[in-house]
């Protein structure tokens, strides 16, 4: 297959765009597209201070790389989850994030969950009923809280994550199957700031397929953690991604079309007034002060208080 731009040997074929590119032209196309999405969806500008949530994986490191090369002011945030049983997943992923920051002379903020909350994610998962022993639920809750706290307290203009189209479509598919209108109302490439403590959020890679972000990381020579989180086995999102890829194989562009149609429907008013996190519905958490739809404590403080309480009992 030949590169559409130069006629050289293509290294990737993006069937949904009917576009095959060689290494050189893919490495030009990918940041150009990112820049286009940032502008089109009004994510942020060159004057803004950006905090990139970095996991050490392909998506977040590729995103940090692209933003840095496009000239945006982007610091990184790595959250140490303490998932080190077996393959030392957290230690390894932190090493990838730190090496990337040093190589590119970028600032990386490291927050260790055990240090600030009193237990690692696997330890906390055992002590709480949240997620029925699976750590993914408390992990997501904790990461969202810390990311928001660091972005807000550090006065960053926007928090960005490396979510790609496959992540977004899998979430959309799951939320649609359950008609979770509250989640559907809040899903999108940009989440506006909520005064009083919820930072603005953006997903500059939301229109790239997962294999495109992986191809960028490989072709750009970015070292990332290839192993997966040991707890991701059997995750529902992975199952949905598989189902959606089956559809994509038969109908190239189906995933992109599903997501863009959702955004258009949302823009035209579907799910309007269904967002639970509107200013009027939010209170200040009595412990940490972050906005919450709960009447007293936010889910993070409630869950971690329970974890620490059970630690004391079992000690």
């Amino acid at each position, binding site marked *: *297959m030949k590169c559409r731009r130069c006629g050289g040997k*293509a*290294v*990737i*074929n993006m069937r949904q765009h009917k576009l*095959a590119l060689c*290494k050189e032209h893919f490495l030009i196309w990918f940041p150009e597209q990112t820049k286009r999405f940032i502008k089109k969806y009004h994510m942020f500008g060159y004057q803004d201070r950006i905090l990139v949530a970095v996991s050490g*994986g*392909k*998506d977040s490191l590729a995103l940090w790389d692209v933003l840095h090369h496009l000239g945006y002011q982007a610091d990184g945030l790595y959250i140490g989850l303490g998932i080190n049983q077996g393959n030392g997943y957290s230690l390894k992923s932190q090493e990838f994030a730190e090496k990337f920051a040093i190589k590119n002379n970028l600032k990386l903020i490291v927050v260790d969950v055990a240090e600030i909350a009193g237990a690692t994610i696997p330890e906390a998962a055992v002590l709480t009923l949240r997620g029925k022993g699976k750590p993914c639920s408390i992990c997501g809750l904790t990461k969202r809280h810390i990311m928001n706290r660091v972005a807000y307290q550090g006065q960053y203009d926007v928090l960005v994550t490396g979510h790609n189209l*496959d*992540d977004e479509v899998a979430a959309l598919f799951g939320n649609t199957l359950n008609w979770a209108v509250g989640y559907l109302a809040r899903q999108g490439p940009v989440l506006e700031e909520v005064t009083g403590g919820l930072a603005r959020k953006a997903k500059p890679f939301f229109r790239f*397929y*997962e*294999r495109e*972000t*992986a*191809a960028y990381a*490989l*072709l750009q020579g970015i070292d990332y953690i*290839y192993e*997966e*989180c040991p707890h*991701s*086995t059997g*995750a529902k*999102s*992975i*199952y949905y*991604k*598989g189902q959606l*890829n*089956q559809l*994509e*194989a038969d109908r190239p562009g189906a995933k992109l079309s599903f997501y863009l149609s959702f955004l258009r429907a949302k823009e035209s008013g579907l799910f309007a007034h269904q967002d639970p996190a509107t200013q009027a519905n939010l209170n200040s958490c009595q412990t940490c002060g972050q906005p919450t739809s709960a009447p007293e404590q936010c889910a993070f403080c409630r869950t971690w208080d329970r974890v620490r309480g059970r630690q004391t009992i079992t000690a």
Partner: protein
Amino acid sequence: MTVRFTLRDQEYEVRAGMTVRHALLKLGIQPESVLPTLDGELITDDEILQDDQHIHLVAVISGGTISPKQVTFQ
């Protein structure tokens, strides 16, 4: 006349002469979930497989690919 495919710790063999995409589908691996590489270089899935080649597949779906069929020879 065989071609070796590897994906994480799994190994597969297929006959030479078919395209990478055809081989992936035969093996029950979703083409969207991997990037095929040959000698460390990315290749497109319309490449015709040659005898004795070793195609290393890079998994791209976070959390791993959906379990492929346990096929060793097609």
